[in-house]
């Protein structure tokens, strides 16, 4: 674990409360630390500050000093140093703390300013809240409760702007709802580096638009929906599907690469409706890719495996474990583990392979990184396999070595943890020479060829942890139950290991005791006390390995070879 350098602290006074905050903190964030809410729309902690919504106006003052002597001017009434209050309100977002800064957020001046801004934002905003899919997470609606008038003084015609514009394949725009905060424009420019959004026309008639003929179609387009404070930008996939207040939120991790973006899975009664990013300033800030949001669709895919099968016939877990154990006890076993398995599953895989003294293979997946939140390594947990000791060197993309061993007759049984052996390079001939035990979620040539087939769970249906490219151990939680016929991976692996002589628990809490005892790097941990924001492990033992990742958000490759 790496300690951050102690930042310079600045003491400020917010609504009478003194607090020391790091230099460079703005008033909104400083206030948050003392539980003072400063409302805002345009401010976003990960975007440049423009100060255009004017909702975060606060009253500000500095301690009075005599201009000549620089001595503090005291207030005889209180015995404290006098404060010179600035007569006009200032924006909290654009004001950074300075020593002795005083802030008031509850004065009539502040209240009137907020009420004024609220009224102005609402006069041209449609009153379609009952059918708006931002309901439940609309900042305008939320703050109208606190600062709205409750009635309208506006008797003029509202401005008319385009409705239901398809900005791109995944984002729908309602310009009448737009409050012109420019967050989406700044995101596209500054983060996604895809400058396609902008305002056209002027004044109150300013209109958000995508350049005609272009689309907001980059792989981060849905982040604009996340940060839109109102219902102007909505997800074409999610709108009109479900009210957000009915949804359960479960913390998860994006599995599409070794970045391990933190996410929230939104579900109701066992059905996932959407995935959104979860803020982690060390990993993904407040962003995630569009492609990762669609991963939940695999849960309901037609190709989902639903039945345990042994030698082609439907079977039960006991029989499947017995059949697999029998095959394994005959010797000449190879295990194909997975960089997609969790740390816990990889640990069990290792115990199982060790009991059989079987060689372990992993399949690497390397693509091109997008420099943002998709890294070159498309396995979420290769580093977990290193930390658990499942592997010692980085895996190859093809199972050529395993193929050769099969051809040489040294391997008779292959146990694959979710990897399609054909896709990983084994030929049909090689596959026909071995007995396959397959644990997996979706049908593929390997599941079709398996002698023993045990359907397992998708990432949203189980809990565990991954180690991302930064060697940050991050946990994910079960959001929905698995389909009938599928068994939790940990249960299957624990049964298999036990059957071949390595008794290990399947339950996460118990399992972590074993893991902590056997793996010094994870020695002090339990699953329960692993923070939701993850925990940085010591990467130095692996510094020499030529990892595939290039630079992405919050990650710079350690070894020059990888860059």
């Amino acid at each position: 674990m790496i300690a951050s350098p102690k930042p310079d602290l600045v003491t400020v006074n917010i609504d009478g409360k003194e607090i020391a905050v790091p230099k460079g903190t703005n008033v909104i964030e400083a206030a948050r630390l003392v539980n003072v809410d400063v409302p805002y729309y345009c401010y976003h902690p990960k975007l440049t500050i423009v100060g255009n919504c004017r909702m975060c106006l606060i009253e500000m003052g500095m301690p009075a000093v005599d201009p000549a002597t620089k001595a503090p001017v005291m207030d005889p009434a209180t015995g404290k140093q006098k404060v010179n209050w600035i007569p006009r309100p200032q924006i909290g977002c654009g004001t950074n703390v300075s020593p002795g800064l005083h802030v008031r957020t509850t004065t009539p001046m502040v209240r009137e300013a907020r009420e004024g801004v609220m009224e102005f934002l609402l006069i041209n905003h449609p009153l379609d809240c009952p059918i708006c899919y931002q309901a439940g997470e609309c900042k305008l609606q939320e703050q109208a409760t606190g600062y709205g008038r409750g009635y309208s003084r506006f008797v003029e015609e509202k401005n008319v702007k385009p409705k239901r514009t398809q900005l791109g394949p995944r984002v729908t725009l309602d310009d009448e709802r737009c409050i012109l905060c420019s967050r989406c424009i700044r995101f596209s420019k500054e983060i996604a580096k895809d400058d396609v959004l902008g305002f056209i026309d002027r004044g109150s008639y300013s209109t958000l638009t995508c350049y005609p003929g272009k689309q907001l179609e980059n792989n981060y387009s849905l982040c604009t929906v996340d940060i839109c404070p109102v219902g102007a930008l909505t997800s074409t996939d999610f709108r009109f599907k479900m009210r957000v207040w009915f949804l359960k939120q479960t913390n998860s991790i994006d599995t599409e690469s070794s970045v391990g973006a933190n996410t929230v899975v939104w579900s109701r009664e066992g059905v996932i409706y959407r995935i959104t990013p979860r803020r982690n300033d060390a990993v993904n800030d407040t962003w995630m890719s569009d492609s990762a949001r669609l991963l939940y669709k695999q849960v309901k895919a037609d190709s989902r495996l639903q039945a345990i099968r042994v030698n082609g016939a439907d079977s039960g877990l006991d029989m499947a474990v017995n059949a697999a154990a029998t095959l394994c006890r005959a010797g000449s076993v190879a295990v194909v583990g997975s960089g997609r398995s969790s740390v816990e599953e990889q640990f069990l895989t290792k115990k199982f392979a060790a009991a059989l003294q079987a060689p372990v293979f992993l399949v690497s997946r390397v693509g091109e990184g997008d420099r943002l939140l998709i890294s070159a390594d498309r396995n979420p947990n290769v580093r977990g396999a290193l930390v658990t000791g499942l592997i010692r060197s980085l895996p190859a993309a093809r199972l050529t070595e395993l193929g050769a061993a099969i051809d040489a007759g040294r391997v008779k049984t292959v146990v694959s943890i979710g990897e399609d052996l054909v896709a990983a390079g084994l030929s049909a001939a090689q596959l026909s020479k071995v007995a396959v035990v397959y644990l997996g979620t979706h049908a593929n040539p390997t599941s079709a060829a398996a002698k023993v087939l045990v359907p397992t769970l998708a990432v949203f249906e189980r809990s565990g942890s991954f180690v991302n490219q930064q060697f940050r151990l991050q946990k994910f939680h079960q959001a929905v139950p698995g389909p009938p016929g599928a068994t939790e991976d940990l249960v299957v692996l624990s049964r298999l290991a036990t059957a071949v002589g390595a008794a290990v628990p399947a339950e996460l809490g118990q399992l972590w005791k074993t893991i902590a005892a056997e793996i010094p790097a994870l020695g002090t941990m339990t699953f329960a006390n692993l923070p939701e924001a993850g925990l940085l492990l010591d990467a130095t033992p692996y510094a020499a390995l030529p990892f595939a990742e290039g630079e992405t958000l919050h990650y710079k490759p350690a070894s020059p070879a990888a860059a």
Partner: protein
Amino acid sequence: MPAPAQTRIIFQHIDEPGYTPDIACYVRNGGYEVLKQAVKRKPEELIEEVKKSGLRGRGGAGFPCGVKWGLVDRKSGKPIYLIVNADESEPGTFKDRYIIHQDPHQLIEGTMISCFANNVKQAYIYIRGEFPHGARILERAIAEARGAGLVGPNILGTNYSCEIYVHRGAGAYICGEETGLIESLEGKRAYPRIKPPYFPAVLGLYQCPTIVNNVETLCHVKYIVQHGGEAFGRIGTPGNTGTRVFCVSGHVQRPGYYEFATGTITLGQLLNDVCGGPLPGRKLKAVIPGGSSAKILKFGERFKGKRKVGAEMVDYDWGVEDVPMDFDSLGMIGTMGGSGGVIVMDDSVNMVEALANINAFYSHESCGQCTPCREGSLWMKKITTRMVHGTARTEDAALLKSVADQIPGRTICAFGEACSWPTQSFLAKFGDEFKQYPETRNAAKRNDAAALI
């Protein structure tokens, strides 16, 4: 008391028969001699002269020019830019037009002296798009000056080089706001920047230290360097030094431009003696003394208080006609000298309709960036237009005032004030006319007054 005589410094040659905008004419009249003297002096000395002069910016805010120059970050190592704000757009103001069209070299000389004083290597003249000939005249004048070694590399044989380019706007009032102007010059929508942190003196054009000065201000600099800051300070009154060009428009007999030593003429002298008073058969009703955003004054109202004269505080009791036309006096009575645009209205004008005209202007010109100005300016326009052309309600007066009160002091730039002050002051001074408008509207329409909206 009769009006004093004009003191023509800046407008010395405007409308002078035979005076042409070419360099030969300018040089014949002593042009560029001041620049020749200036480049032999130390830049700091020139800045000191400007500070001593007490010159206040002529664009609208009246900020002391020497102080503005003093704020420039000279240690950043970045280039310093100077931008001439020739985006004259405050309604009622038309002084720069004459300087640019008739005496462009005066501006160029003032600009070059200011650039030399501030070690500026690149200056831009941001000229409003509605002056196409003005832009061409300036370009021609710059080319002439360049040919004479007065602009460009190694001017007048010195080591000092400075280029000037003309940059045309395209019809946006907000470009008169200096950070909006900078954004526009950078090729963007003219959205004013938040201050802090984007003070032009530190983070201006291309995030470099930048000076933005009005056309008339830079012409004064030439005069200051020629005669010295102290001599300039003796013109006008303390705190309001030099001359002021007043642009008078609306309902007077002789509208036009007039240049006086600042503070030496009262509003009444200017309108009655200089401009010939009201049109035949009319009475003056109201006047906006510093461009259309300045708060309106009502003939007949009185202003009382104490003011500083020398070291003493003396009582004043002024009617509108008695107010000296300087920054401080106009500020004291709740309005401003602004850009020097004086708009006069006589008793044919209905104030609801006049305000509707002004509100249409500001809502059209609001950049739309920040909420109070964007929404407030259009709302006020919709109310006043409806009052004139649709249904006028008695409660509209109170509503208008309340909407206007929600804008100033809460916006990114001073446009918030500019768009709300007219409504606030019209309501404060002519509130009854607004309240009675539902009844008087149709009667008002029957007279021969000009349509205003």
